[in-house]
């Protein structure tokens, strides 16, 4: 097998998430790719917790569909995660026999799993390690034993992790791990499911979307972060709070979302690269200053990690419902670039691009991440940072300072930008409309010119084909368009559909707005039917595209509310249906009319 999806659930104290982390660390060390998502009940402590780990010998694009392996330390907790941990006919179910549930009476209505193992997990932990706390280590032993996953890597990981806790704890956990392996050996699977060995083990990174976003900010030269804690974006601030000082930068945990973006805009005015991060409701609060950044033409990066909405919505669940907010919020007639990463590794490139666009066009830029990407850990290949360039704002020099005209009408629409401390660059930044010199005005002519300037400067952005990923058959009549975390599901769906004999292609925009009309037109030129796939009820990207470009009539939205992730197989199936109907239409067209 090239790929394995494991889902585990237990109570808060069972160490399920910790087991998942050990597992992906071991996989990384052995050269596998992996992806882990966590999910918790709404309690602060305790309650139920779960994780999904997908490992593969090739890069893992999404959390996958139905589980290959389901581990339930107790069924109540497992079942609370519902569609997040789907058990199907090919699933191997492993559960603690202490739950008292008979293998033929599992609480899985209508599902007949491939194999079921009632394992005395708690008892094995007590016997081998003297404590039930080692249940998660027993589970790791079972997984290593049955599925051939990274046995040595896990053992090394256990040793590293527990070295601090002393030789007794370590020895106890090693025994617990071995007991799992022994159990698996004594109770083999009827049809073995051993995952393939990865190729040459290369050094890997283990990181989630929020952490890599913060790292990208540091790489890009960010010197200031102002923000306010909000799930699921807070880790961006937390990482910067540990690291940014080392580079002479500063992090301000502000009194509210508004002060977070306000302080960041102040830092940008002062000449530094600055960022703020938030999630939906915080984005709502920040929008007035987003508009201020647009009219004052100051660079600023705003990361919005989308969660279920509106309002408080579902803070720990993913949804792609903030696209309209990112594009259209803040009053007035203005545009700002909106970018979206599609996976953890992408988040680095997209965040660097956001800083570059902010500096180049003196504008706020929104990075529209989502909870799924932001909080899932991925094992990825190292990123060659030497292929990125770092853009700095154009600053006035020489004659441009004699006298300095802050909002000078240039051909590009971008005017050199000074900052306090620069002699001769003094000007008034303002939320008030202004003339070229920055003097307040209420004149219609000046406003028209400045508005046009603020649009004109983005013209080159619409030709940035490198901000789009196109895969598949270039002349396909069948197409997928998707963005954010859903794009990773579509990439796999594309492969499934092509393996199934369909000719299909996929367009994934990093740049969501302004809509790059030309890129879509040329992509859609061969297209007769397809899907725009996204996790929002109204299909916000689909509607945005309908507004700003021509979408072929046969391309329809495939969208639904958040916290119900798409599965590659369902998208592939939907594509097959469209392909059939296109075939029928073509057939009908050839029939002579009666």
């Amino acid at each position, binding site marked *: 097998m090239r790929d394995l999806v494991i889902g585990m659930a237990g109570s808060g104290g069972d160490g399920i998430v910790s087991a998942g982390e050990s597992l992906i*660390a071991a996989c*990384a*060390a052995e050269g596998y790719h992996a992806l882990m998502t966590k999910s918790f009940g709404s309690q602060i402590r305790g309650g139920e917790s779960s994780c999904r780990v997908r490992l593969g010998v090739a890069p893992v694009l999404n959390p996958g569909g139905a589980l290959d392996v389901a581990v339930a330390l107790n069924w109540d907790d497992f079942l609370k995660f519902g569609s997040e941990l789907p058990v199907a006919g090919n699933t191997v179910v492993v559960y603690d026999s202490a739950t008292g549930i008979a293998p033929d009476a599992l609480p899985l209505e209508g599902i007949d799993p491939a194999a079921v193992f009632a394992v005395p997990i708690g008892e094995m932990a007590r016997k081998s390690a003297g404590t039930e706390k080692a249940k998660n280590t027993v589970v790791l032993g079972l997984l290593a034993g049955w599925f051939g996953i990274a046995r040595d890597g896990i053992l090394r990981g256990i040793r590293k992790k527990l070295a601090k806790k002393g030789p007794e704890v370590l020895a106890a956990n090693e025994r617990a791990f071995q007991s799992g392996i022994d159990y698996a050996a004594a109770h083999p699977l009827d049809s073995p499911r051993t995952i393939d060995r990865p190729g040459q083990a290369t*050094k*890997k*990174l283990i*990181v989630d979307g929020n*952490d*890599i976003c913060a*790292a990208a900010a*540091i*790489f890009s*030269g960010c*010197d*200031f972060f102002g923000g306010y804690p909000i799930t699921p974006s807070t880790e961006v601030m937390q990482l910067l709070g540990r*690291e940014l*000082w*080392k580079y*002479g930068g*500063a992090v*301000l945990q*502000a*009194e*509210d979302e*508004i*002060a*977070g973006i*306000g*302080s960041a*805009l*102040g*830092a940008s*005015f*002062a*000449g*530094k690269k*600055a960022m703020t991060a938030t999630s939906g409701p915080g984005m709502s609060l920040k929008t*007035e*200053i987003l508009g*201020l950044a647009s009219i004052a033409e100051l660079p600023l990066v705003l990361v919005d990690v989308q969660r279920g909405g509106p309002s408080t919505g579902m803070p720990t669940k993913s949804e792609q419902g903030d696209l309209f907010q990112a594009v259209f919020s803040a009053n007035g007639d203005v545009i700002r670039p909106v970018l979206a990463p599609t996976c953890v590794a992408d988040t680095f490139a997209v965040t660097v691009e956001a800083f570059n666009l902010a500096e180049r066009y003196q504008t706020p830029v929104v990075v529209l991440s989502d909870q799924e990407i932001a909080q899932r850990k991925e094992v990825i290949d*190292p*990123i060659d*940072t*030497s292929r990125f360039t770092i853009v700095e704002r154009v600053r006035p020099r020489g004659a441009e300072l004699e006298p300095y005209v802050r909002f000078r009408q240039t051909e590009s629409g971008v005017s050199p930008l000074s*900052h*306090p*401390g*620069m*002699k*001769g*660059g*003094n*000007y*008034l*930044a*303002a*939320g*008030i409309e202004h003339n070229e010199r920055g*003097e*307040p005005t209420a004149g219609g002519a000046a406003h028209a010119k400045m508005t046009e300037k603020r649009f004109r400067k983005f013209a080159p952005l619409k030709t940035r084909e490198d901000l789009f990923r196109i895969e598949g058959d270039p002349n396909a009549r069948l197409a997928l368009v998707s963005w954010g975390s859903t794009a990773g599901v579509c990439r796999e769906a594309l492969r499934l559909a092509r393996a199934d004999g369909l000719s299909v292609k996929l367009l994934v925009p990093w740049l969501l707005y302004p809509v790059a009309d030309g890129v879509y037109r040329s992509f859609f030129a061969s297209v007769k039917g397809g899907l725009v796939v996204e996790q929002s009820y109204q299909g916000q990207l689909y509607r945005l595209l309908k507004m700003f470009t021509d979408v072929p009539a046969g391309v329809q939205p495939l969208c639904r509310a958040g916290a119900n992730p798409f599965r590659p197989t369902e998208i592939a199936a939907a594509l097959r249906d469209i392909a059939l109907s296109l075939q029928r239409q073509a057939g009908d067209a050839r029939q002579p009319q009666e």
Partner: protein
Amino acid sequence: MTSLCTLTAKDFKSDLKPIWCPGCGDFGVVQAIYRALAAIGRPPHQIAFVSGIGCSSRIPGYTTAYGFNSVHGRALPIAQGIKIANPELLVLAAGGDGDGFSIGGGHVPHAIRRNVDLAYIVMDNQIYGLTKGQLSPTSPRGLRTVSSAFGSLENPVNPLSYVLAYGAPFVAQGTPADLPALAAVIEQAIRYPGFAFVNVQSPCVTYGEEEQQIKAHKARMKPLESLGHDPSDLVNAFRLAQDYGTELYTGVLYRNPDPSPTLDSLMRERQQKMSEGALPRERILELFAQS
């Protein structure tokens, strides 16, 4: 920092013509700021002057400093971001009573507790002038305005006790009726190492009450110095602050003789302490490398 050439008040005056009504108290405030800045001697390009929205928030544009006339109520967060980003700058924030104590009131306590080194000048006229005469947070109870036809039913905010209560280390009050004294307290506020607050009773000639005009101020004002107030006496400062709305005290109400370090200096210390052994920015991803 010393400057080689001597600066005069004129060097801080911009060419922009103020939008203020003739006789507005803010003309006096901007004059006092020119004088204070000239006395301090930092060249205009080393000064960042931030405001929110309102008549008085136009003030940065009337100076030659780097100005930022931002959005309503947000001068303080922006000013703090500027100061943290570049502690070398002299940072001023200003605005009206509505800007500072109504829409932006939530930012004041936090600027105070952080003790970012900046001076915050509020032009308090107890009315909303730019929107043509509505109640402001410092309007007295009973005041009839276009938004309170039958008289205000609310107590006013007391800016002096507000900032004292949150621990502001420097609190002063002034009026354009005594320009030299106003310039002097603004200068002291700017020189004070930490968050310094100046409440300026700045008359609104168009919508303000008779007893809030320059002429009345001249008759009413009481220099704290003449009352024998010791600015390091916090308890007496609190007591005097209670007279806001009835008495017009001018001068330094409170000056903490032993201020805590400023946030910007503490941040700089942390940056210096942590700079050693950092991964170069281009190798930051090594943070996530598996050993």
